[in-house]
C-alpha cells in the first residue's frame, strides 16, 4: 500500500514536471523570442520540398497573391502556400524563420528590424489606396475633401456635414445638417497605417495628438472589424464617413470622395491615379510612404505593399534551389505578375518602382554569392 502510494506520488510528480516543462516551452515559443540562424527545424516551414514555398502576412495582398500564385503554378509548377494573417504577424513569422517570405503593407520599423536576426529586403509588389466612403443619401455629386478638412473631421473638430469648411470646397453640393459619424478600423491593419500616416503628414495636430500606426487611439468614432465592418457601418449609418480599401469600395459600389493632393488637385481615386502616385523618386531600399505624394496627378492616400525576404538566403536547411525559386517568384510578381493586378483593382507598380525592385532582388545572396544574374 505504502509502495503504491509512493508510486502514485512519483508518477504525479513526473507528469507535473512534464506539463510544467511543456508550458514553459510554449511560453517561450509564443513570446516572439528569436533564436539565431541555428533554428534549423523551423526553416523552410517544415517542408524540405524545394518546389513549395510558404508565405505569410498582409491580408490586403491576399486576393492578388492567390491569383498570382495560381497563375505562376500553371507556368512553373511551384506551389505557394500564402497565409493571410496580417502584416504584423507576417513580419514576426519571417523573424521566427517559419516562412520563406513575408508580406506587409508597412515597411518594418526600427524595433522590428532589430528583432530580425538578419537583414531583410523590402520589394514593392503592388500599390494600394485608401478611399473615404460616405453615406449621404441626398448628395448625388462626388464629395471633395481637402487634407485639412479630412484631419479636422477625424479629429472630431468638424461635427456637422454642413460645416462652413466642408461647404467652402463643395460649393456646388447642397450639404445636409446631419451629424458626422466616423467609422474606422477596429482591428490593427495596414489600411489604418496608410491612412494615419497620411493624416500625420498633412496635419500637425494629428501627428502630435494621435500619430500613425496600424492601431491608434482614435479621438472619435466607431470601430468596425475589417473593410467589411467599416463598410457596414458606413452603409447603415446616415451621415457616416469611413476609410476603406479602393478595391473594396469599387467592388461594392460605394461612393468615395475626391481628395486634394499636395499639388492642389482634387483627385478621384482610381487604378491610374494610384499608380501615378508611385511615380516619384524611390529610395534604393524602397521603404517609402507614397502618402501625400509629390506627383501632380497622384492620389495622395496610397502606399506600397512589400514582399519581405532575408538578404542572405542561406539559413537553416535552405537549399540554393529553394532560394532561387523564391527570388524568381518575386521577380515574376513585379514584372509579368502585374497584369493580374488591374482586374482585381490593384494598381500596377510604376516603372520607377519596378526598376528599384529589380535592383533589390539582385542584391539577395546565397552564401555570399548573388542569386539572380
Amino acid at each position, binding site marked *: 500500500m505504502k509502495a503504491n502510494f509512493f508510486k502514485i506520488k512519483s508518477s504525479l510528480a513526473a507528469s507535473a514536471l512534464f506539463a510544467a516543462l511543456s508550458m514553459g516551452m510554449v511560453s517561450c515559443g*509564443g513570446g516572439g523570442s528569436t533564436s539565431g540562424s541555428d533554428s534549423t527545424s523551423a526553416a523552410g516551414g517544415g517542408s524540405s520540398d524545394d518546389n513549395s514555398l510558404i508565405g505569410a502576412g498582409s491580408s490586403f495582398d491576399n486576393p492578388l497573391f492567390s491569383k498570382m500564385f495560381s497563375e505562376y503554378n500553371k507556368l512553373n509548377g511551384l506551389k505557394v502556400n500564402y497565409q493571410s494573417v496580417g502584416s504584423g504577424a507576417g513580419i514576426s513569422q519571417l523573424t521566427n524563420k517559419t516562412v520563406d517570405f513575408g508580406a506587409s503593407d508597412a515597411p518594418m520599423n526600427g524595433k522590428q528590424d532589430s528583432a530580425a536576426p538578419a537583414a531583410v529586403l523590402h520589394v514593392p509588389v503592388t500599390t494600394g489606396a485608401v478611399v473615404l466612403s460616405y453615406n449621404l443619401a441626398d448628395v448625388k455629386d462626388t464629395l471633395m475633401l481637402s487634407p485639412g478638412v479630412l484631419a479636422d473631421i477625424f479629429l472630431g473638430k468638424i461635427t456637422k456635414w454642413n460645416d462652413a469648411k466642408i461647404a467652402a470646397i463643395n460649393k456646388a453640393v447642397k450639404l445636409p445638417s446631419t451629424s458626422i459619424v466616423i467609422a474606422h478600423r477596429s482591428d490593427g491593419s495596414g489600411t489604418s497605417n496608410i491612412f494615419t500616416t497620411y493624416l500625420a503628414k498633412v496635419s500637425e495636430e494629428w501627428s502630435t495628438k494621435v500619430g500613425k500606426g496600424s*492601431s491608434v487611439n482614435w479621438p472619435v*468614432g466607431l470601430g468596425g472589424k475589417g473593410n467589411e465592418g467599416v463598410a457596414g457601418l458606413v452603409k447603415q449609418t446616415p451621415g457616416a464617413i469611413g476609410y476603406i480599401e479602393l478595391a473594396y469600395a469599387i467592388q461594392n459600389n460605394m461612393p468615395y470622395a475626391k481628395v486634394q493632393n499636395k499639388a492642389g488637385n482634387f483627385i478621384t481615386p482610381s487604378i491610374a491615379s494610384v499608380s501615378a502616385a508611385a511615380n516619384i523618386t524611390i529610395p534604393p531600399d524602397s521603404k517609402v510612404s507614397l502618402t501625400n505624394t509629390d506627383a501632380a496627378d497622384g492620389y495622395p492616400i496610397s502606399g506600397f505593399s512589400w514582399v519581405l525576404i532575408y538578404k542572405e538566403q542561406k539559413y537553416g536547411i535552405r537549399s540554393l534551389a529553394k532560394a532561387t525559386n523564391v527570388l524568381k517568384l518575386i521577380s515574376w510578381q513585379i514584372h509579368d505578375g502585374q497584369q493580374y493586378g488591374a482586374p482585381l483593382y490593384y494598381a500596377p507598380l510604376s516603372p520607377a518602382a519596378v526598376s528599384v525592385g529589380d535592383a533589390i532582388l539582385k542584391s539577395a545572396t546565397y552564401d555570399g554569392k548573388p542569386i539572380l544574374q
Partner: protein
Amino acid sequence: MDTSVENGLVTRSDRSLRVIASAKSPEAIKSRIKRSFRQIRTESVFKRTLVIMGLFMIILVLGILLTLIVQSLPSIKSLGLKYLWGRVWDPVQDIYGAWPFLLGTLLSSFLALLISIPFSIAVAIFLGEYYPKGWLPDLLKNTVELIAAVPSVIYGFWGLAVLVPIVRNLESHIGVEPVGVGIFSSSLILAVMIIPYAASLGRSMIQMVPSPLKEAAYGLGATRWEVIRSVVLPYTKSGLFAGILLSLGRALGETMAVTMVIGNTSIIPKSIFAPGNTMASVIANEFTEADKAVYLSALIELGLVLFLVTVVINMIGKRIIDRFTNE
C-alpha cells in the same frame, strides 16, 4: 473474466470467500492469489488514472495562468498597477490603460444578465413546473438549447443587420446620438445568447423539487403561483443562481458577436447607448497586428485581467451559493 469459478451463480461480493473455501490444491490457491494481486493492480491503476486526469485539469488551468503572467511581465514591469485604471489606450505612444475595456466588459455583461434573467427564469419555471411534458414544451426546450448551439458570429450578423437598425431607431426617438451600435446593442445580443445556460440549469433544478413538499403546500390551499413563490423558488435558488453565474461567465468572455455590434472605441462610455469595447474584443481585434513587444504584452495582460475578473466573479458567486444552501 473470472474463469476458475466453479459455480456459475457466484456473485462478485462473495467470490473470494467462496474461492478460498473451495480451494483444494496449492495451485488453485496460487492462481487465486495471483488474480487477487492483478485485481489490486487494476484498482490502483484505475485510481491513479483518475487522479492524474483530475490533476491534469488543475495543471492546465495553472499553466494557462502562469503563461499569461509570464507573457504579461514586460507590460506589468513598464506600466505597473496604473494599467488597471489607466483611461487611455494608445498603441502609438505605448500608453496602455485597461479601464475603458474593463468597464465595457462589466457593463455589457451585467446589463445582458439583467435583461436575460426574467426570460431564463420564466422559461425554467414554465418547463420545470407548468408543462414538463408535451410537444410544445419539447419544442421550447429544444429551441432554447439550439440558442446555445448557434455560432456567435451568426448572432453578430443578425445583430448588425436587424438589431442595430432597430436600436438606432429607438435612439433617435429618445434623443441620444443615433448610431445603433454600442453597449446597449451588444447587451441585447448577449442576453439572447446566455438565456439557455440559466434556463436549462434552472429547469432541471425545478424538476428536482420533491413532490411531497409541493403537495403539502397545495394541501394547505396554496395556489400554483404561491407554491412557486414560497416552495419551488426558495428550494431551487442556489441552483438558479448557479445557472445565472454560468450565464455571466459566458457573457464576460463572448468575443465575436460583441465585437460586431459594440462600436469598438477606446473612449470611456458615457451612457449605455454609447459605443464601447470589451477586453475580449480588443484582444481579438488588435492581437494580429501588435507589432511591439510591450503592445503584445499589454494585450496578453488584458487576457490575464479578464481571467482574474472571471475567477473573482466565480468566487463571489460560490460564496453566495454556499450562503443560500446553508440557510
